[in-house]
């Protein structure tokens, strides 16, 4: 049961970790100082959530585990984030689209997770939900600005949406750990979030004068630990210090 719970938490927390890491890359390089500061705030929220989840995992694991052994010392296959969050910061349009497509899902997930029978998960969800509400508002506002801004921005954001769309379906895939945790009343059945997700995303895209892609072929793998080529590079940086100088305190 513990292992399923841990795997289940990875499935949630690794999204926050990897997306937080991706946003961290942008700090100091945003389109305006104000936007830079805003994106960093989102990154800090996500990393804060990650710490709460991993402190819980460490407690479940015992044996001297801590949030950092959990965050830094797994093999690539052991990270269970979705492919969407590991996609690169190709430009601001991709970063915002990635954020938007994830935020809408994240919010719906946390709304359910706060009802979890696992008190710790429920508490983390409850605290995170306010942060993610803000993220959703922020990214939705930007989708509208870019979609209904200039011709160039409209085209660029539409391209980003088309390209990242193939990663949305995976958000609603169930893993074995998911199933086990749903049975315990701990986990959220993500398949039930799918219809509303696409409804909400489409309505914001429509408001932004953007097309909802009609692509039917999707990518998957992250939830099983089979990641895109980007993941190795993300981990190379993330784990650099811990791998180069093992067993030290920082």
């Amino acid at each position, binding site marked *: 049961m513990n292992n399923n719970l841990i795997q289940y938490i990875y499935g949630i927390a690794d999204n926050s970790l990897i997306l937080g*890491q991706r946003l*961290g*890359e942008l*700090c*100091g*390089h*945003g*389109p*305006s*100082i*104000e*936007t*830079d*500061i805003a994106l*960093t*705030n989102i*990154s*800090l929220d996500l*990393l*804060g959530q*990650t*710490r709460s989840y*991993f402190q819980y995992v460490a407690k479940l694991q015992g044996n001297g585990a801590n*949030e*950092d052994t959990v*965050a*830094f010392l797994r093999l690539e296959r052991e990270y269970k984030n979705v492919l969407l969050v590991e996609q690169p910061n190709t*430009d*601001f*349009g991709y970063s915002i689209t990635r954020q938007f497509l994830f935020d809408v899902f994240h919010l719906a997930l946390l709304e359910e997770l706060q009802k979890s029978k696992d008190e710790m998960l429920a508490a983390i969800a409850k605290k995170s939900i306010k942060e993610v509400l803000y993220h959703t508002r922020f990214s939705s506002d930007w989708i*509208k*600005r*870019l979609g*209904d*801004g*200039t011709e*160039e*921005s*409209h085209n*660029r954001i539409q391209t980003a949406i088309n390209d990242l769309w193939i990663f949305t379906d995976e958000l609603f895939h169930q893993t074995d750990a998911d199933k086990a945790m749903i049975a315990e009343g701990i986990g959220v059945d993500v398949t039930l979030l799918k219809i509303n997700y696409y409804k909400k995303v489409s309505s914001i895209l429509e408001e932004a004068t953007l097309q909802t892609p009609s692509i039917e072929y999707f990518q998957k793998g992250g939830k099983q630990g089979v990641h895109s080529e980007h993941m190795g590079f*993300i981990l190379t*940086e*993330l784990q*650099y*210090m*811990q791998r180069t*100088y093992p067993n*030290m*305190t*920082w």
Partner: protein
Amino acid sequence: MSEKEVKSLEEIFEARIARDEKIEPKEWMPEKYRKTHIRQISQHAHSEVVGMLPEGNWITRAPSLRRKVALLAKIQDEGGHGLYLYSAAETLGISRDELIEQLHSGEAKYSSIFNYPAVTWADMGTVGWLVDGAAIMNQVALMGTSYGPYARAMVRICKEESFHQRQGYEILLTLCNGTPEQKEMAQDSINRWWWPSLMMFGPRDADSPNTEQSVKWKLKRKTNDELRQAFVDQTVPQANILGLTIPDSKLKWNEERKHYDFGDIDWNEFWQVVKGHGPCNKQRIDARVKAHKDGKWVRDAAMAFAEKQENKEVKLAI
């Protein structure tokens, strides 16, 4: 206005500053006061924004989650400080875009320290401890500067900065209490950053022609050499607590002066970096130019969107 009238206005103006009155935007001020302030405040703003880059370099590689969020928050603060300062400069009748253009063209300067590379994790500690430490010495004094918006920005900045230096020092303390490898990493970092940190206070007083005017306007409360001395005096005991050696064989307590004596700064290196030939000058400006250029379509889109919304509202009102 006749020359005589300007002269008498200038006298009144200087007397106000001497009485510790603040000067506020839109009040009459000598053209030189305005220009000097635009130059200094924007240089300060640019330093904050360029200063985000060497540290930003380590966000993705921070060795623990705790360190990662602290570093991110610190760099974010620097962005905020840049923003406060740009805003203060804008009250003098120049736009942020013009200021950024001056940075990108090389017309405006920023603190040379950020033209040095941050190559190890220990550098995150050293930058916080020495570089922020040196910056704070200047900034605290500037809280009492004569131009109101600048002074207020400094108050806010100093309040927020207080965690920055502690953040850096704690990183080094952890390294120094760690393995020999970690301590060596810390020592190596001090070896590289010590002299550039001393250079942050600028040329020797004898070679710094602006000092007298700046002191009068309270842009400078102490001279370069006084601040540098205060910094050395303050820092040496902190290095001792860490157990690190400051890379200066001439560094010695002088009982008579009640100050530390220290060795000669390599002024050739100082001028080389100031003139644009430091290890990272080009890289830093290139990064800023790229961010600004890449962001153009985003800024334009937001503006176009805002205009469309406004038109819609006008139509609804009609």
